[in-house]
């Protein structure tokens, strides 16, 4: 295990490496020189105070914005200049902080749409309904049902997405993302708005997903969840990486404490000690 | 050179009318992000109402100077159009303020059709000749006796337009109502929390836009000497293009866009025929040369394509610079 802050190596175990990512919005440096590496099969936490650049990093990673400099290498190949749909095709699926389901489609249809990128039927297939297309349709539907069961909203398959309770919507978003067969599942605050019981069962789901071979990148404010489920954690503050390492090590890091409690508090603590 | 100056003057005159109409689009868009598709119809109603007043007064032989008669027409048209603007907002747009974008656009199209056909029933199916009671006087601008001129009507249109633009700017930037409008444009919810009656401000925006539109209608009628129940459509579309060209939601942009579009149209109409005259290339082909010997104007695109320019400008701007020339300076939106 590398020490916190070490530059990422292009070793075989790395699934996603970010190198010197910079992104500026007008006068705000949202990300400055952020480097990190996520290994295959781990749950990698991304934390930091509000406005630290977590979601910006997500958006740069998933092709919604282009970084001003720096690049990502995913699964052995760079992601430079790829559009969001191409990133999804390469195997990174995401959820959104403020849930973005296809609200007026059923839960099942939402997940079926997630299969789009791994299926082929075109206009002529749709019009002619040849056996290959019909087989594919059946496979899409079957897989979508499986995934709904997997995340635990199988009973709500035919309900409209927006009629689902909040926690189920979060889970549905995860199912929809999983439908794209991702190698990396990027979750943007999946526990936001959940109560303790729901969060606990979300934790179980995350571990199961990882157990089934999908690497997870997790933005989360619920420190209890982060510390209990993440193998390693990257801490951002004002767009800069201030720490990277195991959950335990990061927790002890004075820079992290200072970022979370405020600089003055940290100084005072030092003074008191 | 004289042709150029003449087209420029025509363009600026036309452009100032576009600008006034464009202000109506841009104000409404700035405040509630709605394309008031029926605004062109408000302009048409203004022209029509003023037409009736002018014809009545002139026909009755009222002992008034011609200018006063036109002014009376405008003074009646303004409140009518304000009322139309107010009604449109109240009846068709306010209930849809939170609906998906397409819904108010579709009601606006419906309103356009209703207004057009009501106007057709009230006035006429045929173009109405606007009484030319103000004697047109031309002033020469160059030494050439057949050269560029500017008419008193053109001067009046320019003067009125500039005065209205200045008045609107003063209203938006110097008055309490203006502050309320700008605040509402920024954030309706917060403006409401600050004690601004958002509904009233939005309604007033439509009223002001209607007032501006009515004057534009009178100017167009007087300038072209004609009014027609369908005149609002193309005029409105061009003015909307002008607003987009300048940067929709931006008052200065609407003025700039209007002027530019007027000039582009005038110069385009004036020169496109000559520029696309295939006889420039007569020596390239024997057949062409023979044809040019008979008719020296084998024109690819003549001035009958004038109306295309506005649409091409609109498409080019939206494709290459959707924020328009002056962008959408958020602080400036009214």
């Amino acid at each position: 295990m590398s020490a916190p802050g070490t530059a990422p190596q292009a070793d075989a175990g790395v699934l996603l490496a970010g190198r010197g990512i910079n992104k500026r919005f007008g006068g705000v440096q949202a990300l400055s020189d952020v480097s990190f590496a996520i290994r295959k099969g781990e749950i990698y936490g991304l934390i930091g105070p509000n406005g630290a650049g977590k979601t910006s990093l997500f958006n740069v990673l998933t092709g919604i914005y282009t970084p001003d400099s720096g690049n990502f290498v995913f699964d052995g190949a760079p992601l430079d200049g790829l559009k969001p749909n191409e990133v999804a095709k390469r195997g990174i699926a995401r959820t959104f902080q403020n849930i973005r389901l296809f609200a007026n489609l059923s839960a099942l249809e939402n997940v079926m749409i997630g299969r789009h990128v791994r299926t082929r039927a075109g206009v002529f297939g749709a019009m002619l309904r040849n056996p290959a297309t019909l087989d594919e349709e059946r496979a899409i539907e079957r897989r979508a049902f499986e995934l709904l069961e997997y995340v635990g909203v199988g009973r709500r398959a035919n309900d409209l997405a927006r009629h689902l309770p909040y926690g189920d919507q979060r889970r549905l978003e995860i199912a929809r993302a999983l439908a794209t067969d991702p190698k990396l599942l990027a979750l943007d605050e999946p526990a936001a708005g959940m109560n303790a019981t729901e969060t606990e069962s979300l934790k179980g789901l995350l571990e199961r997903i990882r157990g089934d071979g999908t690497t997870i990148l997790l933005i989360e404010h619920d420190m209890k969840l982060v510390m209990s489920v993440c193998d390693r954690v990257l801490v951002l503050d004002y767009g800069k990486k201030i720490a990277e390492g195991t959950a335990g090590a990061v927790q002890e890091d004075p820079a992290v404490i200072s970022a979370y409690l405020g600089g003055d508090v940290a100084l005072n603590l030092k003074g008191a000690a | 050179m004289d042709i150029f100056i003449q087209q420029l003057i025509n363009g600026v005159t036309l452009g100032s009318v576009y600008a006034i109409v464009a202000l109506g689009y841009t104000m409404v868009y700035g405040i509630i992000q709605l394309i008031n598709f029926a605004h062109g119809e408000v302009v048409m109603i203004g022209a029509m109402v003023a037409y009736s007043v002018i014809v009545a007064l002139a026909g009755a032989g009222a002992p008034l100077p011609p200018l006063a008669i036109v002014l009376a027409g405008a003074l009646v048209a303004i409140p009518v159009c304000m009322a139309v603007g107010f009604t449109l907002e109240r009846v068709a747009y306010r209930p849809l303020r939170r609906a998906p974008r397409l819904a108010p656009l579709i009601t606006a199209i419906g309103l356009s059709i209703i207004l057009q056909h009501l106007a057709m029933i009230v006035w006429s199916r045929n173009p109405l000749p606007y009484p030319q009671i103000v004697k047109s006087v031309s002033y020469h601008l160059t030494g050439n006796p057949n050269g560029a001129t500017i008419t008193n009507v053109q001067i009046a249109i320019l003067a009125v337009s500039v005065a209205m633009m200045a008045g609107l700017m003063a209203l938006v930037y110097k008055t309490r109502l203006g502050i309320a409008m700008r605040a509402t444009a920024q954030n309706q919810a917060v403006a409401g929390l600050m004690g601004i009656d958002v509904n009233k401000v939005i309604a007033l925006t439509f009223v002001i836009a209607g007032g501006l539109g009515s004057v534009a209608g009178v100017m167009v009628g007087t300038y072209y000497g004609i009014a027609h129940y369908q005149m609002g459509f193309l005029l409105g579309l061009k003015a909307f293009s002008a607003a987009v060209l300048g940067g929709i939601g931006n008052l200065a942009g609407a003025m700039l866009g209007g002027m530019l579009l007027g000039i582009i149209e005038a110069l385009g109409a004036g020169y496109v025929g000559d520029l696309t005259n295939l006889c420039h290339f007569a020596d390239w082909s024997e057949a062409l040369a023979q044809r040019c010997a008979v008719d020296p104007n084998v024109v690819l695109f003549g001035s009958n394509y004038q109306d295309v320019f506005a649409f091409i400008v609109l498409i080019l701007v939206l494709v290459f610079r959707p924020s328009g020339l002056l962008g959408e300076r958020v602080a400036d939106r009214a």
Partner: protein
Amino acid sequence: MRAILDTKGNPKLAWAGLALVGIALLVLPFALAAMGTAWVRITNLAILFVFLALGLNIVVGFAGLLDLGYIAFYAVGAYVYALLASPHFNIHLPFWVILPIGAAVACMFGVLLGAPTLKLRGDYLAIVTLGFGEIIRIFLNNLSQPVNITNGPQGVTLIDPFRIGPFSFRDTEAFLGLAFSGPIKYYYFLLVVLLAIIVINLRLQDSRIGRAWEAIREDEVAARAMGINTRNMKLLAFAMGASFGGIAGGMFSAIQGFISPESFILLESIMVLAMVVLGGMGNVWGVIVGALLLSFAPEVLRYTVEPVQQALFGRMLVEPEVIRMLLFGFALVLMMLFRPAGLLPSATRKRELEVRR
């Protein structure tokens, strides 16, 4: 309609219902012809508008892109047919060659317009498509100089009817003791094409492609994050809608035998949009109902408004055409205010429009 088509739920009733509808549609033209051949022509035009509305429904209803210049593609199809099957250039290709060409040319125009503009937000796209429609019309009006391509405002006349060998759709023929007039033959042809287009629409909606369109309509950012190439999918919707319009235009040319730019004004675009909106965006059956309602409305009004006014006022105050337009305008406004999802809303569209109000 759905109950009738539900062959699984109640097969006997469903098939009996379908058979009845089928027989009614087969007998219809003769019943209409008994009232006057004009009614068969009116019905044929109504079916053409159903085509157009279904084509526009792909763009507006499925993919959620507002197109206000749709009639331009109809115009392109109509002119392609007219120019390739009339004395104007003295070219007389058979219809089964020209219709695909018309569809392809219209499709090309759709892509040309769509490629640069589809990234625009909804209402801007609407205005740009409107501008495009007007540009096409202005060109059709003026492309008679310096080389006469479109024959300008006079339009193209003497357009060939559909013809297969010696069998022409213009002549009346007796068969089984029944007189098959030209319009009646066209009716059957249109009926077959209509069935095909309905099936295509229903299948498209319930397919991988249809779901991708719906995803874009619901949330474009999320759709892209799910790996949907939104630009290509929107272009596809545009191209398919345009092709439908092109085919309908070709048939219009042949059936009318005469076309001019006047048939392709903005109001026609708005009319087709109104059909889609009135019936229920995204719902194939709703759109068909909307198209039929608005197509037959002027005829119904012609036979009611005039006598009523004569009876009431002793003379006609307002022409039926004007009343039709007024009703049409009010229908658009009132539909949006009180029934935004249309007369027969599709399940998803209805819920979306209701929740956001």
